[in-house]
């Protein structure tokens, strides 16, 4: 790994890219570029784009496999761009790429860094990479304290919970747990919520008493609830008032772990929590990066800082290849949506007047310059929405056709079991399906991300047990993985662990799993009971 200034040509390109980004008024953090060789690149990716990581068998396995693939020519080891956003941001260039490719990577990174800075989910934070290096040191210290065997056992158990991170879920830690102290979390994921301004109301004690319709019974119940709440918090330090989907986050904060174990959980949480941001903003993010990449690259070609515009055009169109909705290409969809929205703003088509216009001819010919510059409007979008809202607002049926999102190879459409009524057009090779169906499917992705939705719903189930709930979506969990996963959670929680999936209650403690049939409860029932200070499930 070497700094970009060790290569004069790349260093010059970096300066030009930064110059153009500045000229285009981009809000950028400090960006540091490094040059890596092929194996370093492979290793960096296995370390989740951080330069260091604690020792673990999973990274080792993947690296050995990758090395074999590279040696046998099955993998080229060429990656388009790898960046760890934050302030400073760290971007890594593959030393096997051509200068034109390196320039495009740097221009692309500009887009990502800015997006992380501006987006509503606030992915960017100070010294993220440095903070991870600090956490790695803590894990290494903990490893010596735990001993190699215990360390590996705990790490391997915690690997099971990595997919159960949801820092931006509707049921994240902030929205499901209250505690008596502010937790000095060594994480970056929490978004500071704006303080609600309490409006002053006219106060009259006599009137209040007269108007109060609550019965004594109700008042007593409310008092009792408050008392229970206070007691629970003072006993455990925290209380669940809604299902918690951020399971790793919960265990990191509340599992009875030693500081060494907490260091491992903390490292895992911080390194993986950004994935949630990526998956919720991938289309906007990649599209934004492609948009600025192209703009900056055009400037570089104009001033002849780089050569190879034809090659760049080929690479660009290769990256922005249209794909059907289920294999969506965020580069293609994102880039085209941003350029489309920009055009709409340029012609003033995103305005009340435009929507209220009833004459179609006038609408078609609409071209009224807006008061704000279109790019400002695009930035406002970045600052306020994520992919779900982005698609909901702007992905029209016409665009679905235009971007080929609903075009599926005929044979594949048959294999997918698509209803004939949902096919709107066919030719010899392709079937076009209902755009409405496509949009629904694409939006639904953001509710489950094709993963089972798992929540912690009770932290004191059957006297100290942890009760986990699988939200029913009419699909069963992989049966043979329930036991080892519960065993791993039990290893971390150190008390019995329970799982409700459908009408089965699985329990795991003392290396033994049992399952019993229970009455099925819905997620809404569970949430309501938690809100009412009741036990969500009683067996």
């Amino acid at each position, binding site marked *: 790994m070497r700094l970009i200034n060790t290569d004069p040509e790349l260093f010059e390109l970096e300066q030009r890219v930064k110059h153009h980004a500045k000229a285009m008024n981009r809000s950028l953090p400090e960006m540091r570029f490094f040059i890596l060789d092929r194996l370093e690149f492979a290793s960096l990716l296995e370390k989740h784009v951080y330069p260091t990581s604690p020792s673990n068998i999973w990274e*080792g396995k993947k690296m050995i496999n990758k090395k074999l693939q590279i040696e046998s020519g099955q993998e080229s080891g060429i990656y388009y761009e790898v960046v760890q956003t934050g302030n400073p941001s760290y971007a890594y260039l593959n030393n096997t790429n051509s200068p034109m490719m390196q320039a495009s990577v740097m221009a692309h990174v500009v887009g990502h860094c800015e997006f992380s800075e501006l987006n509503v989910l606030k992915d960017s934070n100070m010294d993220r990479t440095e903070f991870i290096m600090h956490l790695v040191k803590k894990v290494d210290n903990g490893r010596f304290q735990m001993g190699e065997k215990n360390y590996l056992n705990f790490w391997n158990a915690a690997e099971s919970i990595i997919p159960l991170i949801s820092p931006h879920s509707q049921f994240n830690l902030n929205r499901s747990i209250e505690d008596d102290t502010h937790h000095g979390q060594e994480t970056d994921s929490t978004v500071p919520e704006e303080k609600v301004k309490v409006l002053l109301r006219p106060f009259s004690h006599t009137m209040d008493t007269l108007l109060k319709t609550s019965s004594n019974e109700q008042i007593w119940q409310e008092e009792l609830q408050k008392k229970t709440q206070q007691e629970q918090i003072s006993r455990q330090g925290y209380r669940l008032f809604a299902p918690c989907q951020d399971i790793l986050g919960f265990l990191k904060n509340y599992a009875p772990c030693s500081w060494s174990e907490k260091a491992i959980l903390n490292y895992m949480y911080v390194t993986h929590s950004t994935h949630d941001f990526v998956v919720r903003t991938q289309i906007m993010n990649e599209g934004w990066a492609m948009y600025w990449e192209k703009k900056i690259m055009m400037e570089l070609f104009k001033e002849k800082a780089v050569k190879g515009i034809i090659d760049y055009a080929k690479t660009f169109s290769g990256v922005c290849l249209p794909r059907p909705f289920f294999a969506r290409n965020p580069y293609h969809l994102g880039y085209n949506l941003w350029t489309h929205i920009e055009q709409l703003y340029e012609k003033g088509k995103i305005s009340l007047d435009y929507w209220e216009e009833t004459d179609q001819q006038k609408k078609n010919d609409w071209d009224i310059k807006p008061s704000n510059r279109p790019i400002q409007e695009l930035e406002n979008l970045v600052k306020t929405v994520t992919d779900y809202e982005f698609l909901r607002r702007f992905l029209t049926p016409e665009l679905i056709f235009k971007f080929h999102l609903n075009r599926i190879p005929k044979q594949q459409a048959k294999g997918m079991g698509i209803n004939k009524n949902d096919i709107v057009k066919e030719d010899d090779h392709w079937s076009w399906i209902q755009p409405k169906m496509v949009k629904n499917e694409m939006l639904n992705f953001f509710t489950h991300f094709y993963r*089972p939705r798992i929540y912690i719903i009770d932290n004191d189930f059957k006297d100290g047990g942890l009760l986990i709930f699988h939200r029913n979506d009419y699909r069963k969990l992989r049966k043979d993985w329930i036991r080892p996963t519960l065993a791993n959670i039990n290893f971390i929680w150190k008390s019995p662990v329970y799982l409700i999936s459908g009408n089965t209650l699985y329990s795991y403690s003392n290396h033994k799993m049992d399952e019993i049939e229970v009455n099925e409860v819905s997620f809404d029932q569970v949430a309501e009971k938690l809100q009412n200070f009741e036990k969500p499930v009683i067996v």
Partner: protein
Amino acid sequence: MVEDKINSNESEGAFNDFIEDRIDEMVDEILNDGNFDHFGDRNSDIIVDANDIIPPTFTYGDEGGGQGQGPGQEGGGKIKFGVPYKRFMELIASKLRLPDLSKEGNGKIKEISYAYKTFGPTGILLDKKRTFKRALRTSIATGSYVPQEDKWDVEIRRKDRRFKIPERVENPKYKAVVFYMGDISYSTFGERLEMEKRLVNFIQSWLDFNYGTNNVEHRFIVHDMDAYEVQQDEFYQVSNIGGTKASIAFDLVYQLAFHDYSVSSTNFYAFYFGDGEVFGNDSKEITEILTESMCPVFNRIGITEVLPGRWSRLNQDLSKNFSHHPKVRLSKIQSNSQTIDVIKALFGEYK
């Protein structure tokens, strides 16, 4: 930034340690169930096929369908890794606490011979055929041999002469010779044949590992009322129903050892497999051959009754003279799970 080079060496090491443990477990498994099928070809890497490791988590089962659309799990199949043959045998040896056999005997003497493989312009032994060929070619070129013009002279010049040149060849004397004796008069098929094959396979691998593959000769003897040498494949195939006499096999082995090899520089091993049913004074004759002829020159003689029946008495008869003998080992095998016990009995050291 502290790191100069990004690498995953430590994690790769952790994974390799994990795999080492897996191999250890696998060797334990092999030893527990006596299954030596992993051996494959001798001296080639042992390919270990293990279940892939993936951290389990809550995910959809197969019955839900649509798996391809989600962020699919990697692999789920098998991972393969190769274990060097030597390392594998070392593990087996350490687990079974088998002694290092290569210390035995004087096996480093090499046989020196001369082979005429190259030819040169000087020497003592003239190669007439080559010399004549060269002379003929030269004569054609110079025009002294033109049959159409009735010229028949073939001039042999000095340059045309070719001499045989001897080359010194060092052939290692066999460090070890192993004789396998099989009784073809009993029903050697099915389970019995498999057991015998496994034992022979292990003995071959073990001795090859100790002396080096090229330094061990394996010879196969079968007998009924008569004894004769066969190829390895035939050792498992030939069978005959009728009378049997094991002592003649032992006698043949001794004769072969004595006549075909230098007794002072070769490690001899002999292993007998049969149902143990012997007749007349066969046991007595075997005892005599073992005591007088074989024991003084053989390193190890193993006699194994494979699935012995109620009439089997070979081991019983021999145990009178050879129980706890340093060179002669007696064993029985009734099931695959006893393979390891037999190997320990054949090769282990008495404490």
